[in-house]
C-alpha cells in the first residue's frame, strides 16, 4: 500500500480512537456535571459518595448499567428493537467527524506521517461540512421513531411520535437559522468558518470580532433554541413525559440499550456545543490574542483549552436552562416552532440576503 494512504488511514484510526475516547469520557462526566449542577441550583449537594467530588460516579453508573439484566420483552419486534439504540447512537457519534478542534500542526519531518504535510485536528475535512452534520443528525430521528415502533407499546409509540414531530419541526429552523452564517462566511466548512471569524468588522469605530454571534445575533438565538429542541432538552423535553406517556420512546428499554439512548442524548449535546462554538463563537480563537506565534504543541494546547472552555460554557448552558425553565405544552411547542421561530428564521435569512445584495450593488462596508 502507498505509504501516504497508509499514513492517512492510521492517522484517521488514531483520531477516531482519541475523539471517541474524549467524547465518551465527556459524556460520562457530563452526566455527573448535570447531577452536580442541578443539585447546586436546587440548594442541594448532589452525589458525593463515589470518590473525591463524586468523580468515580460515572464509573459506578456505567458498571451498574453493564451488570443489569438485559431484558427483551416478548412483544417487541426483536430486530428493530435491538437496532434502534444503535440507530440513535451512531448519528450522534458520526456528526463529530467534521468538527475541528484546533488549527492544524505541521507533521513531523520524518517518520510515517511526514508525507501528510500537516496534521489536522479534525477527523474529516470535507467541504460540505455543516451540511454533513445536518444530514447525519437528521438520521437521529430514525432511532427514536423505530424505538417507539419496535417497542409495540402505546406510550412508546406516542412518545416517539411526539419526538419525531418535534425534531422535524425544529430541524427546519435549525437549518434556516444557520444559512445566514454561511452567507456571511461564504463557506460550509467548519474550519473555514472558524478561520473567517478571526477577522474584525471594519466599518465600525470600535473593532468588533467578526464572530457569528455578532454578525448573526438572531440566527444564533434561533439556532440555540432549535438545538435545545433537537437534543430534546428542557424546555422542549416533550419526548419524555412521566405524567402522560411514561418515559416516552425508551420506556421498554433497559440496561445497556437504555444507556445507549442516554449516551446519544448527551453526546448530541456535547457535539451541539462544539458546533455552536465553531459557528458563532469563533471556535478556538480568541480576539486580540495571537496564538499562531507559539510553538506547535503549546499553540494546540491553548487552542484546545479555548475551544473546550467555549463549548463547555454551552454544555453548561444546557444544564443551566434545564434546571431553570419549566417545559412547554405540546401545542405551545408546535406554535413556537412553526409560527414564531420559522418565520423569524426566514426573516433573518431574507434580511441577511438583502444586506449582501445592497452591499455588493451599492458597495458599502
Amino acid at each position, binding site marked *: 500500500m502507498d505509504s501516504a494512504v497508509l499514513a492517512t488511514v492510521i492517522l484517521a484510526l488514531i483520531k477516531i480512537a482519541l475523539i471517541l475516547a474524549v467524547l465518551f469520557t465527556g459524556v460520562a462526566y457530563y452526566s455527573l456535571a448535570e447531577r452536580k449542577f442541578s443539585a*447546586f*441550583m436546587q*440548594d*442541594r449537594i448532589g452525589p*458525593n459518595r463515589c470518590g473525591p467530588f463524586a468523580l468515580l460516579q460515572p464509573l459506578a453508573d456505567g458498571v451498574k448499567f453493564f451488570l443489569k439484566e438485559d431484558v427483551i420483552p416478548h412483544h417487541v419486534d426483536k430486530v428493530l428493537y435491538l437496532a434502534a439504540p444503535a440507530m440513535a447512537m451512531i448519528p450522534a457519534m458520526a456528526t463529530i467527524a467534521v468538527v475541528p478542534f484546533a488549527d492544524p500542526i505541521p507533521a513531523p519531518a520524518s517518520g510515517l506521517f511526514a508525507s501528510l504535510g500537516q496534521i489536522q485536528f479534525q477527523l474529516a475535512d470535507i467541504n460540505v461540512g455543516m451540511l454533513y452534520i445536518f444530514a447525519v443528525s437528521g438520521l437521529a430521528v430514525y432511532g427514536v421513531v423505530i424505538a417507539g415502533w419496535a417497542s409495540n407499546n402505546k406510550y412508546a409509540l406516542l412518545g416517539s411520535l411526539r419526538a419525531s414531530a418535534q425534531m422535524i419541526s425544529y430541524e427546519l429552523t435549525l437549518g434556516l437559522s444557520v444559512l445566514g452564517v454561511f452567507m456571511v462566511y461564504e463557506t460550509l466548512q467548519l474550519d473555514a468558518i472558524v478561520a473567517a471569524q478571526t477577522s474584525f468588522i471594519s466599518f465600525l469605530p470600535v473593532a468588533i470580532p467578526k464572530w457569528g454571534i455578532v454578525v448573526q445575533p438572531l440566527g444564533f438565538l434561533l439556532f440555540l433554541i432549535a438545538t435545545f429542541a433537537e437534543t430534546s432538552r428542557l424546555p422542549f423535553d416533550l419526548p419524555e413525559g412521566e405524567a402522560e406517556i411514561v418515559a416516552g420512546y425508551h420506556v421498554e428499554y433497559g440496561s445497556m440499550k437504555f444507556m445507549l439512548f442516554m449516551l446519544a442524548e448527551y453526546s448530541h449535546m456535547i457535539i451541539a456545543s462544539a458546533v455552536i462554538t465553531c459557528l458563532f463563537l469563533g471556535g478556538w480563537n480568541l480576539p486580540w490574542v495571537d496564538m499562531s506565534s507559539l510553538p506547535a504543541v503549546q499553540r494546540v494546547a491553548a487552542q484546545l483549552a479555548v475551544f473546550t472552555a467555549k463549548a463547555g460554557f454551552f454544555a453548561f448552558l444546557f444544564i443551566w436552562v434545564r434546571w*431553570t*425553565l419549566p417545559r412547554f405544552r405540546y401545542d405551545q411547542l408546535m406554535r413556537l416552532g412553526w409560527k414564531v421561530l420559522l418565520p423569524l428564521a426566514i426573516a433573518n435569512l431574507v434580511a441577511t440576503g438583502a444586506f449582501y445584495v445592497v452591499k455588493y450593488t451599492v458597495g458599502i462596508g
Partner: protein
Amino acid sequence: MAIIVKKPAPLTFWERIYLPAILKGLGMTMRHMIKTLAGGGVTIRYPEQHKRVPNNYRALHVMPTWEDGHIKCVACEMCSTVCPANAITVHAEEDENPEIEKRAAFYEIDELRCIFCGFCEEVCPRDAIHLTKNYEFVTDNREGFLYGMDRLTKTGRLVSELEAKENKDR
C-alpha cells in the same frame, strides 16, 4: 349577582418574547448555585456531620449507676407498669445491702417496641432510667434491639461521644 372577571392585562412585547423572563430565571438559578457553592448549602452531610438535637431529645435509654458501680434501679416496676408499649421487662431480687432491699435481677428494654415517650424516665422514683440523645443504635437483627442491664448501664458513654461529634461538626 354578577361576577366580575378581571382579565389580566395583555402581555407586553418584552413579556411575549420570553427572553427577559428567561434571563431573569437563569439569574435566579445561578444565584442559588453560587450561594450553595460558596456556603456549602443547607445540607447536613449526615454520616460525617451530625445534626445538633435538642437536649430533651428522647432516644436510647441509659440506666445510671452510683459511683461504686451499683445500679440505681430498685426494681419497683413503675417503669414497666407505666410503659404504654410494654417494652420494659423487670424481674426483682433481694439485694445484699439491707438499705436497698430490692434490685433488678433482670431488666430489659425492647427498643423496637419502645415509642420513646419518656414516661419511664418521668415515673422513676430513683432517677434510675434516662432517655439519651443517641439515636444511632441500629443493628441488623431483632435481638440486637433487646437492651439488657449490661448494655443499658454503658450507653451513657455513647451520649458523650455523640455530643463530641456535634461539637466537632458545628
